[in-house]
């Protein structure tokens, strides 16, 4: 670890400020992130996040590929723990530009799959958050559940992490015969596990002590920094694109938007953000149940897939709610085969940018909790 000493003079005694690097190889930075911490003893004076270690320039690739359909696998690799949601945003954007009509069955499958993915992603986020704070057991329990979702995805698409399952106009292939049964089974067995998780971790006294009143993000600051998703909702703001700006068929389902309440500490602390994710999983289960009921049994999922994507000139900004927040794709099409410009608005990037604002003055051990509670994926930060 690289340590630099800066002598600063204090009125009474000579104090030393220390600059220390947390990362890029640090287990609780959730990827290759380097935080320069300016420390006074154990108190964090300043944080300077350094990113770019995973930068592949997704946007450049998208522009140079010369084809709209081949961009989808690249979107998978942005937020690799919720790849389905990333694909969904992109294909919806292209479909809107094409003014394509999507079959009912496809819409239902897409919703079920993206909500399953949301649960899987939150399970990883929550599990890793607990692990960062020394709670090892919940992590293992949650990964068992996540495994079940990945098994469903593997049966459906053939891959466990990067699926390339959604295509413009439909899906790569139909879901397997027992998809409905498997998903219903998962919903049934998973619901009691949330209660188990609450007993084991959420209302655990040690866990509350580590997360309550830590990393407080007031609503005003959250809005000024353009936070979205569970981070914004953890601060008490009721804003969810699935409800406020519905895409796909989300307007047909009945579900609530959980928000932080400052139950065990201050509104907008790490615990609030954590708890929003736990409660969102319950709501996702509700959506999945309703979607399973409404899903038509028959129908060709590749029916509306265009043979060649030919777009007229235009630009679109399409936003969807991923497990981490508002994911936007801004696409400009000219008359050529591929997009002229693709810009992805990644929620993790925005959330990381406000880390200095919420971690000033905290202890170095709490830094780990704060980084864990904003649940960033570095693949999406760097794109």
């Amino acid at each position: 670890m690289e340590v630099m000493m800066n002598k600063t003079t204090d009125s009474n005694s000579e104090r030393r400020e220390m600059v220390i690097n947390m990362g890029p190889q640090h287990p609780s930075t959730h990827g290759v992130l380097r935080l320069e911490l300016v420390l006074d003893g154990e108190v964090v004076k300043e944080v300077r996040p350094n990113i770019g270690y995973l930068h592949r320039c997704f946007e450049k690739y998208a522009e140079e590929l010369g084809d709209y359909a081949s961009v989808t696998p690249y979107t998978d690799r942005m937020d690799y723990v919720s790849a389905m949601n990333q694909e969904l945003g992109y294909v919806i954007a292209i479909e809107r530009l094409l003014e394509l009509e999507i079959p009912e069955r496809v819409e239902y499958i897409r919703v079920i799959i993206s909500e399953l993915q949301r649960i899987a992603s939150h399970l990883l986020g929550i599990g890793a958050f607990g692990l960062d704070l020394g709670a090892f057991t919940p992590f293992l329990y949650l990964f068992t559940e996540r495994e079940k979702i990945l098994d469903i995805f593997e049966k459906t698409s053939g891959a466990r992490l990067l699926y390339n399952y959604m295509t413009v106009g439909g899906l790569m292939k139909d879901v397997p015969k027992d998809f409905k049964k498997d998903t219903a089974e998962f919903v049934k067995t998973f619901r009691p596990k949330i209660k188990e998780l609450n007993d084991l971790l959420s209302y655990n006294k040690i866990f509350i002590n580590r997360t309550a009143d830590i990393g407080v993000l007031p609503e005003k600051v959250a809005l000024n920094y353009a936070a979205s998703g569970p981070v914004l909702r953890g601060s008490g703001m009721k804003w969810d694109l699935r409800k406020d700006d519905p895409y796909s068929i989300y307007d047909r389902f009945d579900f609530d938007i959980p928000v932080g309440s400052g139950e065990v500490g201050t509104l907008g602390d790490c615990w609030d953000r954590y708890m929003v994710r736990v409660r969102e999983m319950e709501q996702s289960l509700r959506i999945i149940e309703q979607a399973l009921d409404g899903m038509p049994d028959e129908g060709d999922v590749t029916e509306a897939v265009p043979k060649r994507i030919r777009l007229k000139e235009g630009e679109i900004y399409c936003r969807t709610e991923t497990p981490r927040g508002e994911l936007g794709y801004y696409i400009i099409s000219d008359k050529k085969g591929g997009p002229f410009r693709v810009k992805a608005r990644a929620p993790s990037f925005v959330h990381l940018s406000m880390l200095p604002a919420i971690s000033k003055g905290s202890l170095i051990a709490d830094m780990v909790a704060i980084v864990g509670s904003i649940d960033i994926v570095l693949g999406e930060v760097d794109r």
Partner: protein
Amino acid sequence: MTPDLSMSLELSEHLQKTVDHLSENFSDKLIHVYQSSGDTFIIVDADSILEISKYLKEELHYIFLSDVFGIDRYTSDERFEVVYNLLSLKHQQRVFVKIRCEEENPEVDSVVPIWKAANWFEREVYDMFGVYFRNHPDLRRIYMPEDFEYFPLRKEFPLLGIPGSIELPSTTPDTD
């Protein structure tokens, strides 16, 4: 010169109000208003972005700066575009404000004093396109190394390799 910029556009109530108020207060700064795929785009004069942003935030409730990004239009004049994606949570309305700048010394005022979120967004635009933001508190490269000379998202930058650097191995198999 105050043409009815919103003519022949179907705007929702708040967007109509936005366009009306802007053309009333900044009549000579508004260049063009158009719609595409349901979104509304307003092109404004680059030098007055700071005051227009301030007005949009304070008078018209666009408190949420969702994104700032650059576009390389690859044209001979006004090559670079910077787009501000604004959202009014109260009215659930989005508007896109665009400015254009020249290829030589692209420069624009930073909007960090108005929305803190602009900090990293503008750093990314600077890193990728080389658009300089005046009065930005911390304008450093965000992804690329500090001594990197090029701007990767400009259209002339190649997909593989750095210009003038060591030659890349051939991507086609040997024919002999």
